[in-house]
């Protein structure tokens, strides 16, 4: 019984939780406070798998998964705008079949924090180490779940978090640190994986989806010789820019969905600013990821030039 972490009620929800829920911090290395929200399975928590869920970014909170994707509640916006949302049970929650941990990782993301902000200077390896440390402590605290089948999961930049963490977990098992941890596997959704494969993915995708014309497609294929990753040919750059110019205003996270504009964004911006992406932006940043080309950065949208992973832009 984890009395200090049990969540007994939530503002916005009137009803009984379908399963136990817990939340709190696990502190690692003395001053890295990692926040988790743990939802027990609604079916058979003692035998159902334990799944760790990680959103990506890097720098994005796993409450994105909890609130918007597969958490135990659907969040209905409050009325009037700005008031607390109303929570309803989500019939498609992943907690209907598994115990699931939503972890804000690395430190500095979501509700995870450190008093020493130098800890926010972090990378893939340190993130994997820290998350592994979190898991060891978490399973110590929730030892009744230690023998359950255990899986790692996540999406987007968790395409990096998950395999690197899985390697740490496997190394820990093999080294005898946690020989009985019942790690079974992992799942990754729309995950960042490899600069070449991911970098070459955009052009065939947007052509297949009808977002660029046959002429634009044939030009960029010819100019880049079908390889867009780390291609420094000026003709390729120019043709690639022509491709990227087709996406202004498009919701890159789902090309069928509208692009949401915050209530105070587009209408309040001067025209010159709105046109920044279309008129002044140079070639989309292509030399940051891994120090090499990573050519599927977000196109400029109406309310300013942005990148897919805004945290990288801030670097």
């Amino acid at each position, binding site marked *: 019984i984890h009395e200090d972490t049990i969540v007994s009620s939530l503002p916005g929800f009137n009803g009984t939780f379908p399963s136990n829920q817990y939340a709190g911090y696990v502190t690692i290395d003395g001053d890295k406070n990692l926040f988790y929200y743990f939802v027990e399975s609604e079916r058979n928590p003692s035998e159902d798998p334990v799944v760790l869920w990680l959103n990506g970014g890097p720098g994005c909170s796993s409450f994105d998964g909890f609130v918007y994707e597969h958490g135990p509640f659907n969040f209905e916006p409050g009325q009037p705008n700005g008031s607390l949302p109303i929570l309803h049970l989500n019939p498609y929650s992943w907690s209907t*079949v598994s115990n699931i941990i939503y972890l804000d990782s690395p430190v500095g993301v979501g509700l995870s924090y450190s008093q020493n902000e130098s800890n926010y200077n972090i990378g893939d390896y340190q993130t994997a180490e820290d998350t592994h440390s979190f898991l060891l402590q978490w399973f110590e605290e929730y030892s009744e779940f230690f023998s359950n089948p255990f899986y790692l999961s996540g999406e987007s930049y968790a*395409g990096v978090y998950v395999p690197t963490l899985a390697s740490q977990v496997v190394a820990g098992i093999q080294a005898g640190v946690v020989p009985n941890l019942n790690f079974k596997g992992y799942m990754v959704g*729309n995950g*960042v994986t490899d600069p070449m*494969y991911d970098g070459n993915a955009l052009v065939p995708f947007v052509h297949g989806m009808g977002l660029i014309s046959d002429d634009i497609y044939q030009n960029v294929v010819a100019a880049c010789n079908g390889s867009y990753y780390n291609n420094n040919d000026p003709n390729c750059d120019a043709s690639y820019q022509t491709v990227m110019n087709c996406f202004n205003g498009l*919701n890159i996270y789902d090309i069928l969905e509208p692009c949401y504009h915050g209530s105070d964004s587009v209408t309040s911006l001067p025209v010159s600013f709105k046109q920044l992406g279309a008129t002044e932006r140079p070639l989309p940043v292509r030399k940051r990821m891994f120090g090499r080309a990573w050519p599927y950065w977000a196109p400029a*949208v109406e309310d300013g030039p942005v990148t897919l992973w805004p945290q990288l832009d801030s670097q």
Partner: protein
Amino acid sequence: SGVPCVSDEVATIWLNNPAVREAIHAQPVSVAGPWEICTTNSNFNYNHDAGSMIPYHVNLTNEGYRALIFSGDHDMCVPFTGSEAWTRSLGYAITDPWRSWLSVGQVAGYLQGYAHNLTFITVKGAGHTVAEYKPQQALAFFSRWLEGTS
């Protein structure tokens, strides 16, 4: 937050409410800072130091760990074309040739199964955050994969 085209208002309101923070045992804004869907803290500096993940996938699947790679097929951020290509590039034997998979009696996407318990699936009509766009179908593949059923 600067994430283009995405509304994070509901989560931002909820997770920055003092009563919610208290209920979930989170530190107040004065200690942990405001909740943001993606941090804008200028001290957050992330180094991409691990390189390609393909060697990790090779090692893990060869060690016998199961892997599911899923893709919302309308995501332009990390398009399915890349995930399909790198999974294929591993050269594993195909154990379940390209076919549709079903949810509630409808085609919900496509899959290809490989040796070493590697499975690639698409989720038809879903974007980057698959379960947000296709919650029922997402639960279907999630539960079936965990249970090891087809």
